[in-house]
């Protein structure tokens, strides 16, 4: 049954991807990309990768959709007419696809017990040793945060860089033209959408609380810093969508967000430095406590907190920056 599910879901993915490429209306494509993300998360669930499925669920349904829609609102809704030259692009695509398919022939078959990843002794070592050594039942978290902690530091650095890049390229909101401001202003929402506003106000604390639960529960089930950060940012986004970007920026000022972006990464790297000062290696959490297992647990909790803070701040900054760009009004709206 699981293989059958795999085949069906992959077929759906292919159909949706093909339709998304062929469609002319950019908004329809945004909807299809949302569907694509749901399908990807289902595939990850069927492949028994719960942490990845959780991250895809948190990012694809909310944040990605909002980013695409902000871009559509700032630019335009229709695609430029196609150029009509199809032979050369088709040839290049087929050649690249054939080369990739030929490359996969050398890879081990799916689920092959003699594949290097299954056979290498380090995999057995992690599976057998990690629950006792660290006291954390979820092996994925132990691997990400302790055994491969340096990689995760790099990943957090990538998220940090993304936030800095968006800030550098698009920048802080400066109010120029008032027309776009009225469309997004609080009066548009407050008096016209009472039901959504009331229910939204009820949902925001639930979402934020659930984000804290996912952050803390990363040791025992799927979860952790990345997912929790995205869910927390989604809660703040509900507030922004319902009450306008002015109110949202009063709630979480961009200056605070910028400091939080750096704070999360500092916490992560700081724990590593503390480990060095206590006589161990960088990011060797066993020095944090007299009992090695407790030390690892404290270290994992600490760095997950750092990751969560950075991810929340970066995603919120990106969303605010993209939406704030609309306030300045695009050129077409000002000319007409």
């Amino acid at each position: 049954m699981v293989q059958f599910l795999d085949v069906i879901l992959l077929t759906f993915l292919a159909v949706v991807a093909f339709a998304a490429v062929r469609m002319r209306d950019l908004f329809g494509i945004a909807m299809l990309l949302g569907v694509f993300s749901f399908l990807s998360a289902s595939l990850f669930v069927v492949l028994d990768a719960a942490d990845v499925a959780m991250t895809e669920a948190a990012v694809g349904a909310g944040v990605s959709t909002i980013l695409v829609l902000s871009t559509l609102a700032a630019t335009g809704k229709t695609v430029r007419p196609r150029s009509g030259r199809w032979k050369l692009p088709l040839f290049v695509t087929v050649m690249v696809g054939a080369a990739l398919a030929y490359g996969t022939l050398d890879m081990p078959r799916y689920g092959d017990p003699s594949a290097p990843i299954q056979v290498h002794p380090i995999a057995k070592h992690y599976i057998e040793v990690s629950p006792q050594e660290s006291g954390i039942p979820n092996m994925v978290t132990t691997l990400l945060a302790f055994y491969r902690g340096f990689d995760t530091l790099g990943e957090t650095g990538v998220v940090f860089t993304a936030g800095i890049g968006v800030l550098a390229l698009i920048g802080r909101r400066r109010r120029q033209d008032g027309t776009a401001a009225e469309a997004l202003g609080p009066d548009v929402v407050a008096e016209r959408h009472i039901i959504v506003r009331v229910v939204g106000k009820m949902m925001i604390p639930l979402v934020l609380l659930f984000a804290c639960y996912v952050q803390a529960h990363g040791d025992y089930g799927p979860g952790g810093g990345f997912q929790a950060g995205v869910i927390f940012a989604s809660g703040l986004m509900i507030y922004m969508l319902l009450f306008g970007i002015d109110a949202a920026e009063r709630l979480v000022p961009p200056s605070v967000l910028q400091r939080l972006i750096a704070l999360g990464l500092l916490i992560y790297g700081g724990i590593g430095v503390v480990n060095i000062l206590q006589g161990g290696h960088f990011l060797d959490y066993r020095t944090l406590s007299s009992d090695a297992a407790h030390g690892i647990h404290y270290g994992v909790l600490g760095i997950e907190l750092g990751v969560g803070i950075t991810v929340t701040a970066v995603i919120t900054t990106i969303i605010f920056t993209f939406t704030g760009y609309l306030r300045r009004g695009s050129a077409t709206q000002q000319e007409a």
Partner: protein
Amino acid sequence: MYDFAAFLLLVAMALSIVRALQGPTVFDRILAANMFGSATVLMITTVGFMIERTDLVDIGLIYALVSFTGTIAVLRYVEYERVMAEKQAKRAAGAPKEQL
């Protein structure tokens, strides 16, 4: 027992994909994507019980909360486009700036 329910939910997902590809208006597509999301939540929960990993219910919870955010974002976008189009039309008709 879980297989049968998962299969039926897959059928429902396929039908909503067809509507998402077809839907003449934009709201058909939003509706289809919303229903696809709900069906996915139910399917992920069922598959979680099927492969003996019941903590996948957390993923369903995340989807239920986050797809609400996505739907609100989509509807605000549609409203934004409509309000901007109206302003555009009024400006083209020559109304003074204070009336916009």
